[in-house]
């Protein structure tokens, strides 16, 4: 496939994944705030966490904020490339770029998401109830994921979607773990983390007794059956790379991206939570995050042209009636 199309598929998937995650993080924080944040201290910390994930900032560098400013920054702010408005707009621009390669259903879902988000204001979202809007964004993102799986040929374009989707998903899970202060954080913090990672139910099924923080770390990082654990994502990235190059996974590499992705997989296949805690949660999370960034950089170098894909601003859309 065209290198330019491959790159657009990759960014399309990354931005849809990020929009979904930011919507879920805001939703979890907002709904939890309604019956749990009697203490300002907690509320402050929760919204700071949401803002750190929704702006890809280091938790230490995020200022105190309230719900409204978090919504504003993470939903509408066009200067924040991780806001829902930005990610959805960039996803659509990339979808237009590969319009000839997408199924009608995929394109329409992306376009409808864009038209919905574009029509929103903070007042409208507040009036409607933020949870409803955020839920709609999540639903639509998941519909996009499902419909691409069900309607695209599982060849190059879809493989680049998988690459973008899982690289981004693993990366954002690490961003969430970075907002944990220490293993001694109270349980509600861990519960919030599980919900933001969409891991609450899967974790409850996988752990049989009253769980401890260590198990949450183990689950979110390593669980090989949970499709959002960092290890699972690393393996999917590696598998997609080998499908693209048509070489067997687990037996060496044919380019720099496969080399780095293979190493990352080995890290998850041959380490456990004891190793993580030995290294320290935060140093480990930081290191793996850089390794994922290196994999993404290598994918760029191997497969994409040196001409950037346009990340256009929102185009005004109006209906002209007859």
């Amino acid at each position, binding site marked *: *496939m*065209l*290198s*330019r*199309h*491959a790159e657009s598929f990759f960014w399309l998937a990354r931005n849809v994944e990020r929009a979904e995650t930011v919507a879920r993080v805001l939703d979890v924080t907002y709904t939890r705030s309604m019956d749990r944040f009697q203490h300002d201290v907690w509320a402050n910390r929760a919204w700071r966490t949401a803002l750190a994930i929704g702006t890809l900032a280091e938790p230490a560098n995020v200022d105190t904020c309230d719900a409204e400013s978090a919504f504003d920054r993470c939903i509408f702010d066009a200067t924040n490339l991780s806001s829902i408005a930005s990610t959805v707009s960039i996803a659509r*621009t990339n979808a*237009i*770029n590969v*319009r*000839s*390669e*997408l199924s*009608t259903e995929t*394109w*329409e879902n992306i*376009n*409808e998401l864009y*038209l919905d988000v574009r029509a929103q204001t903070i007042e409208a979202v507040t009036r409607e109830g933020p949870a409803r809007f955020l839920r709609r964004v999540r639903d639509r993102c998941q519909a996009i994921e499902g419909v691409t799986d069900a309607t695209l040929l599982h060849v*190059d374009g879809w493989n680049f979607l998988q690459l973008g989707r899982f690289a981004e998903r693993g990366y954002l899970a690490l961003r969430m773990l970075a907002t944990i202060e220490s293993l001694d954080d109270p349980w509600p913090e861990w519960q919030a983390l599980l919900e933001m990672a969409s891991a609450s139910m899967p974790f409850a099924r996988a752990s049989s007794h009253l769980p401890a923080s260590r198990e949450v770390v183990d689950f979110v990082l390593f669980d090989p059956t949970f499709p959002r654990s960092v290890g699972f994502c690393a393996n999917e990235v590696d598998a997609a790379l080998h499908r*693209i190059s048509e070489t067997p996974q687990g037996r060496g590499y044919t380019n720099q991206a496969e080399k780095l992705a293979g190493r990352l997989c080995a890290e998850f296949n041959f380490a456990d939570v004891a190793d993580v805690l030995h290294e320290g949660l935060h140093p480990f999370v930081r290191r793996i995050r850089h390794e994922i960034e290196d994999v993404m950089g290598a994918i760029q170098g191997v*497969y994409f*042209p040196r*001409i950037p894909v*346009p990340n*256009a601003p929102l*185009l*005004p*859309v*109006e*209906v*002209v*009636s*007859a």
Partner: protein
Amino acid sequence: MLSVPKRLEPGGVFDEFFLDAETPRPVYERLAETLRSLQPGELAGGVRAINAALLRRGVTFTVYAEDAGTERIFPFDPIPRIFAAEEWDQIAAGVAQRVRALNAFLRDVYHEARILRENTALRDAVFSSNLYVREMIGVRVPHDVYIHVSGIDLIRDETGTMLVLEDNVRTPSGISYVLENRDVLKRTFPKLFEGYPLRPVDDYPRRLLRTLRDAAPPRSGEPNIIVLTPGVYNSAYYEHAMLARQMGVPLVEGRDLIVVDNTVFLKTTRGLERVDVIYRRIDDDFLDPLYFRHDSVLGAVGLMNAYRSGNVTLANAIGTGVADDKALYRFVPEMIRFYLHEDSLLPNVETFDCTDERSRRHVLGNLENMVVKRTDGSGGYGMLIGPASTAAEREEFARAIEAEPRSYIAQPTIQLSSHPTLAGQDLVARRIDLRPFVLYGKRVDVPPAALTRVALREGSLVVNSSQGGGSKDTWVLGASGA
């Protein structure tokens, strides 16, 4: 009950729908009955749903000159325009004849130039045309086909005669609306189709693909075909993407191409891939910065050399624009006689050549009754519609004509035929035209897929999408005679 107005517009305009004050024309009888049976608001409600669907599908075009690329839907009118089989077959034969003659003309002007030896006025028009591409002289194009895809604009005058208004033999657009219009009308108003045996339009992409395969340079193996687009900001990008998707070929931008050893390649994730046929939706000027506009980033460096070497087919060929230069339009009947030894099946609109002093004086003296067009213009930009113009506009055009007579032609204002069209809840008469598309591969093919454009403003004669036009589904009845 929706009332179909008895007479939509008083005399002077041909009514497509009604035979006289009382009776619909035979092909419209069934439709009139169906329209009368609709509930009030049914049509308007359906149109709202259609417009929402078109926006959702992203069937939009970009309006230039407004704030940096506004995306708009091309308004859709739900009342279909209908052709009986015999009438359509005559139209198809007429436009096919025209394209054959124009193609023979292009072959001639870029080689022996036989016709130019016999007709000095035509010779002057060709050599003064900025659409005549000297780089194409002596270049053999595969199978001598220049005009693989064209759209011929037709109008019906006061007497009901179909006339050719202009030929579009560069990169005509609009076919995506034909395909979308049929699809949305079927889904929204299935009732209207009852009792009408229609020819389908949805095989157009297949017919286009066959045309492009026929155009491939002689080389063993399956030709590698691409669609070349200027990119996502082009007003017809949706159409480029739709055709590429339905033909199953890559939609490519100039930056995806590289020319090595006079061969065109695509940059893919598996390395370079050879290209044989380029269905290009980019103007000549932008195709190759080495030969044409040096500042173009839309084409590919070296493309022209690859083309001249015969290693790649461009559809349409470079240099076809001279055949639709409006200053040459009045010679087309003569071309038909000269190359085909036939009389024109479809007449031209009377046209005044502003370089001729007597004609120019006539034009300048009658500007308020004339339509004046730039000879190298298209898309409804740079036009004067005399009856609708202000004195100041006429003054401006008069000065422009005096200054550059070669750049303008004038025609008497033809009252385009009218057709019932929905405005709010009511049916009103609005002017329409017709653009059949002609494909030319091993033979000339006229698919029963024509675009009817409608001027949505009352009394307006301008149907272009960029100028407040809309479109209608166009039905061709009966078994194919082609």
